[in-house]
């Protein structure tokens, strides 16, 4: 438990994406959840996805574990015995622990998101949720894959997106995108190699925080896909069934 692979946590340390891809160590997360049944299920499901889970069942022990050990991501339930989830987060932040936190909430009220993010959370998922949604968000928060955020040019295979000039090229050929399509591609490429769900796309590209109950996102993604794949042999934008989308260099 004391041994933490620091190199794996340093996603922003300047390694090239290919280097990191080669040495993805297992991600380690802390789950603070008082519902033992749910925690057991999540622990098992995360393990199957190659993620190591430490579990704390109340706020105090969660705070202790969170400040003593280092994790890639913490999942914190809002309502916890002995110490409220939000206060765990603010206490961790006060102690200088900047590990990304995903807040789970059974309350699910609209303003919960705001208070949760204000308390120092990085993402927020109301219950009930699909595990694939939680997994996708944890992986994005852990930032093991994808492109470092400070990069000005995102690259996946021969696809290039220039965040400054807003130009997209594939194999040197310019592809014209609508502003929203550009943001969609930008988000997908920043999280290249990771699954992003439809909800995550609606949140990050359109800034609406609810489950798109229909195929709105799919239609936008397929439009984008036709633009970036039309004249090329290699598909880049994959549909991950039951989960979402992923842009990845299969070559």
């Amino acid at each position: 438990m004391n041994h933490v692979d620091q190199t794996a946590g340093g996603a922003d340390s300047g390694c090239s994406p290919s280097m990191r891809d080669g040495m993805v160590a297992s991600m380690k997360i802390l789950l603070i959840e008082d519902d033992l049944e749910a925690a057991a299920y999540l622990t098992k499901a995360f393990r199957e996805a190659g993620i190591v889970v430490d579990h704390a069942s109340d706020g105090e022990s969660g705070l202790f574990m969170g400040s003593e050990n280092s994790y890639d991501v913490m999942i914190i339930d809002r309502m916890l015995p002995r110490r409220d989830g939000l206060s765990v987060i603010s206490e961790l932040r006060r102690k200088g622990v900047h590990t990304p936190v995903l807040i789970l909430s059974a309350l699910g009220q609209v303003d919960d998101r705001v208070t949760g993010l204000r308390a120092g959370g990085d993402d927020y998922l109301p219950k009930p949720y699909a595990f694939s949604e939680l997994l996708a968000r944890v992986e994005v928060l852990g930032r093991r894959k994808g492109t470092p955020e400070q990069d000005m040019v995102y690259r996946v295979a021969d696809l290039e997106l220039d965040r400054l000039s807003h130009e997209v090229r594939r194999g040197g050929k310019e592809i014209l995108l609508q502003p929203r399509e550009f943001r969609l591609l930008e988000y997908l490429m920043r999280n290249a190699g990771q699954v992003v769900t439809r909800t995550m796309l609606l949140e990050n590209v359109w800034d609406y925080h609810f489950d798109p109950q229909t195929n709105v996102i799919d239609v936008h993604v397929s439009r984008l896909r036709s633009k970036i794949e039309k004249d090329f042999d290699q598909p880049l934008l994959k549909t991950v069934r039951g989960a979402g989308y992923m842009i990845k260099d299969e070559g």
Partner: protein
Amino acid sequence: MTTFRVLYKSTAVRLSALYIVLFAICAAFLVFYVTALSERILGQQTQDTLQQEVSDIQRAYGRGGMNAMLRMMERRARQPGANLYIIASPTGEILTGNVASVEPGVFETEGWTLIPFRYERYSEGGATTDKHQANGHVFVLDNGLRILVGRDLGEPQKLRFLVRRALMVALGVMGLGALVIWFGIGRNALKRIDRMSAASTKIMAGDLSQRLPVGGSGDEFDRMSESLNAMLGRIEKLNEGLRQVSDNIAHDLKTPLTRLRNKAADAIGRKDEDGRRAALEGIIAESDQLIRTFDALLMISRVEAGSVAAEMSFVDLSAIVADSVELYEPVAEEAGLSLVADIQPDVGVQGNRELIGQAIFNLIDNAIKYGVGADAGARIRMRLVKEEGGIRICVADNGPGVPADRRDEVTKRFVRLDESRSKPGTGLGLSLVEAVMELHNGRLELSDTDPDNAVARGLTATMVFPAPEQ
């Protein structure tokens, strides 16, 4: 007696009793004040008259001596309702006058008699029995004779007596009347309250269709009954809605759960890996749909409970409508519809952006799902306009529309007019829109897009926000 005790307990009766007591006190004060004032004025007048008499007599004495004075006094004494005129010796014996005797000591002090004195008057038969009281002015002549000019106090006393009797009678009548009215009102009120409690007992027993009796006179009781009845109506409606919701939930969740179960059974039975995988994926999709339904249900109840009201801020409606057009335009196109929008710029309200966004998305979603009935040129028109009566966001399709008599129904939870449930959806979309509009003090209006078109009347759903206060 018990009736009285109950009567006394009633607030109305106690209040009216209090009013009567207060009124009586005021009336008594008024009457005493009026008598006191009139007595004072009367007394002043008596004094003035007597003063006049005294100076007249003194002048007569000065001009014509004893004889002239006596003549004048005699003349005046003979007039009806005359004052008292007495001439007494220096020792106080009455020498002459229209008075038989006076209380001893009256002549001793000159000037006004401070206290009324008693005197006896000659009566008709010459007997000296009548006893009276009078006030007077005594003066002494230079020959030592004492003259008293006085006035009987009978008149003011009679006045005072009259006024007091009138007051007593008035108070008596008032008290009696009040008692009768009090009893009448109280009994009437009690009867009505009895009827009301009888009705509320039935309501408590669970019969929410009961209403409190309304007399029709429009009095306080009627007003109270009416407002309580309105409340009961609302409760009944909510209760009915709740019952319907739980019925619908039970029904609408049973179906997917059964499907889920069947798919799971199917997955177990599958030997081939691909088939099993497909069955499991079906289970996931089915579960996701269930989760969505629950999410939507929770969201609606939260919105209805108003617990999201704290998250209100300025919302740029023009931007949201533009977003929604941008988001749904490809979807509509894919479904074979065109989506056109007419957006007035810079329109905003205080509200919750997420909820308003979701409501608009739901309306467009419905329009796409149900607006495809038209043969050619299926089209969704969106409009955002700020008018005097409020801000309107219209989403109009030219599909088959919703018959006017079923429009109330479609906003209810789980109600879907398409009985086959062939289109995907939770049946909660319009319920959420309605809840969101209620949260924003607005409303959802449903109307025909083209009432003259029998086949494709189309549905126009309009979110109406109240006009922002200036």
